[in-house]
């Protein structure tokens, strides 16, 4: 593993240990009160979910158009993280919505598109695991659909009437709420980079294992 990995892991663990303190000290939102504090983990996990889908899509495009096995490994690793961070966003969101909006779920454009993006990532993993020969190309094609869905998820709230707030909420956060939010986002982003590196390393080791098996035959 790279030299930066261990110090970055320690920094990430410290950031996750400090984030609840910052979140607890942040002021309450005027209409939602305590439950709004879910946003400090919900929104970063949702953003990383979208970032991971873009990483998976870009790596798949590179792989499809002349890229090597390295791009395929990154795509597979990112797809697994789309499922992980997507699950976080899709579970924490309804817990927030139940109190704030009075419903667990609503089939609005953002929620439906997010669920679809998550299911595309699950499909990618199933295809890669059980698809047999050629599943790498098929999976890369699926990842393109997942990436194309991302801008749709993000801007949908500005064009369709939905109970989700518009994209203007985060840029207008007051400093007292902005500091814990951006700190949490930095922690999630660092975690994503570390997990992606670890997951790519696993694929590298699997390739190494295959090479050793071949040399034995």
């Amino acid at each position, binding site marked *: 593993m790279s030299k930066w990995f261990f110090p970055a892991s320690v920094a990430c663990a410290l950031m996750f240990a400090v984030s609840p303190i910052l979140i607890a000290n942040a002021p309450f939102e005027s209409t939602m009160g305590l439950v709004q504090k879910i946003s400090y983990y919900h929104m970063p996990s949702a953003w990383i979910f979208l970032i991971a889908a873009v990483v998976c899509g870009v790596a798949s495009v590179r792989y499809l158009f002349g890229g090597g096995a390295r791009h395929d490994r990154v795509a597979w690793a990112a797809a697994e993280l789309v499922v992980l961070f997507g699950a976080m966003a899709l579970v924490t969101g309804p817990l927030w919505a139940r109190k704030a909006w009075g*419903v667990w779920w609503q089939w609005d454009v953002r929620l439906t598109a997010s669920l679809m993006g998550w299911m595309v990532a699950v499909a990618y993993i199933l295809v890669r695991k059980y698809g047999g020969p050629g599943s790498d190309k098929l999976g890369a094609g699926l990842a393109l659909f997942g990436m194309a869905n991302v801008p749709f998820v993000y801007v949908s709230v500005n064009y369709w009437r939905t109970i989700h707030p518009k994209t203007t909420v985060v840029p207008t956060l007051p400093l007292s709420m902005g500091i814990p939010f951006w700190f949490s986002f930095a922690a999630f982003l660092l975690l994503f980079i570390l997990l992606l590196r670890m997951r790519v390393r696993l694929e590298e080791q699997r390739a190494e294992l295959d090479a050793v098996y071949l040399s034995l035959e």
Partner: protein
Amino acid sequence: MITFRRVVSGLLLLAVVCAASTAGVQASQPSEPEQLSEFVPIEDLPPQEELPAAPLLIAAYAFVWVALFAYVVSLSRRLGSVAADVQRLEREVKKR
């Protein structure tokens, strides 16, 4: 080794649980409110009608922490297992 059959049966189980929980959620959704003829002070409402925020907040944070922990443990175990296999096979190659 996770087989395709196990994944399919797991997905089927998940679908059944989701369907059951959806039915439960629909039953617990607040129905259309009745037309009011007067305002009722909040002190007069039974306390069980108020949905507390703390359990939802704790559940959200707990889910994130548990999911992250489970994923890191799973990834470490997979890395350890593959590294052990590589080392074992490399020793076998050297012996030959």
